[in-house]
């Protein structure tokens, strides 16, 4: 039902098609058929709920086991929480400081999101509103490079970080986000549809500098596209595992995913309750954020994939 409402809203927005009357697709079916329909809907809902449970049960086990002792977990499976939450936390924090990893991940993800959003908007603005030599060649080259998988340059990237002396620091994890081709591409497409050159010309006549025009007119109008991409940039950076694993050596600089991988080989792994708790701490904030943002995340995924 909801997708009907959505598509209707989309139609209303585009103002292409005239409003259509809501009419039932067919005449009321005879009674027997209605009964059959009710039964199959019941089956479908049951299936959907089972699927929902499958999606959620690993998280539930994680939460439950995070509160149980090692012995309890080893002796059997339960859906009722135990009482060892504080003990598990004590064991976990004896080995690692999970909040350091949390802080590192947060710093990197926030800076990556800000830099990627700001500089991509700037690049998109340059590509969209100025005519200069080589513009099209540069744009096409950027799109081609977008197709190249990240692993291709991995070894070269490691080597250049070594040469620049920025290994084991956050710099190679943050600075490259200034150049995010896909974000530039997305914002440029959006800008060309929403921001008209006449607005920029009007501002020029009023005596605004080019940089000022970008900051006060273009950037605010690009914000919806920037925000859409920011959700993905943030999640992508937060979940990135390969790059920090390769580039960071000091445990106090580890991001959360690297710290989680590190936990596996450590002695914490012998205490299952503490291990579950460590995983829970890394997962629960994302789950809570998702509760509030799921609508935006879903529409962002659709916006990234479906181009009309």
């Amino acid at each position: 039902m909801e997708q009907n409402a959505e598509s209707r809203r989309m139609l209303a927005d585009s103002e292409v098609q005239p409003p259509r009357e809501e009419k039932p697709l067919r005449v009321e079916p005879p009674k027997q058929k209605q009964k059959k329909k009710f039964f199959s809907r019941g089956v479908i809902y049951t299936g959907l709920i089972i699927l929902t449970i499958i999606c959620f049960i690993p998280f539930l086990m994680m939460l439950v086991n995070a509160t149980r002792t090692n012995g309890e977990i080893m002796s059997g499976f339960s859906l009722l929480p135990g009482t060892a939450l504080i003990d598990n936390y004590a064991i976990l924090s004896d080995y690692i400081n999970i909040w350091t990893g949390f802080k590192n991940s947060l710093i990197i993800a926030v800076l990556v999101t800000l830099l990627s959003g700001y500089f991509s908007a700037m690049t998109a603005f340059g590509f969209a509103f100025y005519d200069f030599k080589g513009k099209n060649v540069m744009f096409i080259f950027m799109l081609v490079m977008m197709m190249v998988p990240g692993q291709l340059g991995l070894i070269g990237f490691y080597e250049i970080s070594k040469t620049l002396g920025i290994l084991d620091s956050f710099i190679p994890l943050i600075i490259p986000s200034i150049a995010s081709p896909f974000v530039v591409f997305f914002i440029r497409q959006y800008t060309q549809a929403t921001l008209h050159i006449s607005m920029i010309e009007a501002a020029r006549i009023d005596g605004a500098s080019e940089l000022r025009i970008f900051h006060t007119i273009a950037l605010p109008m690009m914000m919806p596209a920037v925000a859409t991409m920011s959700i993905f940039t943030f999640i992508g950076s937060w979940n990135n595992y390969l790059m920090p694993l390769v580039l960071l050596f000091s445990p106090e600089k580890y991001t959360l995913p690297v710290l989680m991988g590190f936990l596996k080989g450590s002695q914490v792994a012998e205490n299952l309750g503490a291990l579950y708790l460590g995983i829970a701490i890394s997962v629960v904030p994302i789950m809570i954020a998702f509760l509030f943002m799921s609508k935006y995340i879903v529409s962002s995924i659709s916006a990234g994939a479906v181009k009309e």
Partner: protein
Amino acid sequence: MKKLDRYGYAFIAPFWVVFLTFSIYPVFLTLYYSFTNYTGSPGEEIVGFANYARLLTDTYFIEAFVNTIKIWGVNFALQIGLALLLALLFSDLRLKLKGLAFFRSFFYLPNLITISSVALLFGILLDWQHGSLNMMLLKLGIISDPINWLSQPVTAQLSVSLILTWMWFGHSFIIVMAGVSGISKDFFEAAHIDGANRWQMFTFVTLPLLKPILLYIMITSLIGGLQLFDLPLLLTDGIGAPDGSLNTMVLYLYNQAFKYNNYGYAAAVAYGLFLITLVFSAVVFKGMFRKERAAQKGA
């Protein structure tokens, strides 16, 4: 060129400085290393195509390639099948299912979680002796002995496929659903008037119109799948146990470079992986469009 247009260069300059330094240059540097015997210390020698010759006969790499395709293939079939089935149900005008937003959120949730947490979580859930999965199955009486999921090649690969399906079907479902809601209701109404049943409506209306979206899902999933790495790394011993069945191409690349310091050879592996990705993407594209052309001719 107008005077103002020089500002264009200024606006795109920061992007290009960083792009050239951290994206383009590394790609060419890797290409250079793939022709050397570089091991991490300066003074590498150029060895021509030796690394590539080795790659072609390297049974570990070929095995990694086969593993990657197997794991991705099973996962993709399940994932897209589930996504299409769900989209079919939720878009059915006669069923009028409620709660799309609720289900969609739950189905998508696993996709948001840090993959190392997922790997760790399933690592202990699938544990042979103390894992909750075996305990639950034993309690329910489905199995009589605990199954050693992660130490048999077949079940280990299947486990990775299923975990990937668990993580990604919600994502595919959202995209397919967005595509379905973009299809004009007129098509369905017309098909309905022509007397199409639910299945005919799906195969003759929904599927053909969804083709571009399915192509998008397939290409992105394939490129992501060929880069599969973190789950196999973290689920077992990090080099592909049991029996090398979890050795994927990127895991092999990672181990060659950062574990054994064979940077030169690892660079060749990276380019091999790139070529494989290109070929597969081209095949998918071509397959999709050939069918389309044939259909047009037929009509």
